[in-house]
């Protein structure tokens, strides 16, 4: 067991070192990307400016589905009747 414990200790040391080394390197990578971004800037894009991707890709493109359009026109016409009195 002593041998296994030794081995576990080595794994702990090596493992944590490599995890830290790897992720530290990644920090450098992100800074490099950020530097690259500042050097060659692209237009800033906030979540709100990018149109929400639709969860369902439609193969035939219609801006508003007929169902919704029908619902709306029905609602509005009902409303029109009720207000036109």
């Amino acid at each position, binding site marked *: *067991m002593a041998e*296994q*414990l030794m*081995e*576990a*200790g080595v*794994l*702990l040391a*090596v*493992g*944590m070192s*490599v*995890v*830290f080394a*790897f*992720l*530290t*390197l*990644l*920090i450098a*990578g*992100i*800074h*490099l*990307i*950020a530097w*690259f*971004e500042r050097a060659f*800037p*692209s237009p*800033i*894009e*906030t979540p709100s400016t*990018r149109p929400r*991707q*639709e*969860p*369902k*890709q439609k193969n035939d493109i219609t801006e508003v589905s007929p169902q919704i359009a029908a619902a709306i026109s029905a609602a509005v016409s009902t409303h029109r009747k009720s207000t036109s009195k």
Partner: protein
Amino acid sequence: MEKLLILWESTAIPHFEIKQIIMMLVGFALLYLAIVRKFEPLLLLPIGFGALLTNIPLAGFSEAGGLLHYIYYIGVDTGVFPLLIFMGVGAMTDFSALIANPRMLLLGAAAQFGIFATLFGAILLNGLSFFDFSLQDASAIAIIGGADGPTAIFLASKLAPELLGAIAVAAYSYMALVPIIQPPIMKALTTAEERKLPMAQLRVVSKKEKILFPLAVLLMTLIFLPSATPLVGMFCFGNLLKECGVVDRLSNTAQNELINIVTIFLGLAVGSKLSADAFLTAETLGILALGAVAFSIGTAAGVMMAKLMNKLSKDNINPLIGAAGVSAVPMAARVVNKVGLESNPHNFLLMHAMGPNVAGVLGSAVAAGILLALVGP
């Protein structure tokens, strides 16, 4: 009469053993946790159901020719299902908070201490006469501390398939228990003053940075840690599908239908590993105990690292966010936010905790790669 006898012989009743009845209770307990307590139901419900199906004499669900046997053999034994889940999770993950504040990666690194420290624990348990974990078993168990389901299942399927069921159940259970396990540790290691610390607002991250990030992660993994490529690679692939903006239909499928289908199958297949012979052993108790230890050590290490960084940095770093480094996305980040609000009702830490949270996913995938390289087959 003879037919009735055949039928009686073909019922489960004359074949039942007490162990199988216990396993059915375990299955029902998992369903209870999933449905009533809402513990990670997406996985624990199929796992619990799979446990019920697999523990019945004669049903043969998990034997050659049975449905769960096929699913396990095709999807888990090969490692395909956890990798596809990881792809879907990648397609759901937003790395903005991490890219805006890359130092958070150090918290994701520190929290992996739980994994490697637990290796010790597993070996120490071998001192007790009824445990005999190999180093491979110990590694598969320790990864529970990574708080990441697919990573744990993937590593267990490679290093210790016979422990897979118990490891998966432990991993998902402890992920669900994050709101109970973490807060006491977080409060014990921090002062009220520290918990009130506000953090600077995060900068806006450009689309180009978000696209380059998964590629950078992939490149580094390819070069420095090829054994982590399956996990990290599929994760980065999913994230690239999401961020690149030109293949939305693939990204949507990866994070919806595909991950749902795979989740159903993965859960059932993992559940099919909860057979009495494999689960009702001292090892399972050891796994549950070690998993809790791994989780707690990981949380503590994350918090301590955050305290250290707060000391060394000129910017405020609220030590609570270190706890999110274990992953368990997004639960751990939410717990950080909640504990933070208790000390300072105006201090919203959610976005700040998302950085270490997604860093923890990368961290545990990297840790899995290291374990695969060092003790793997």
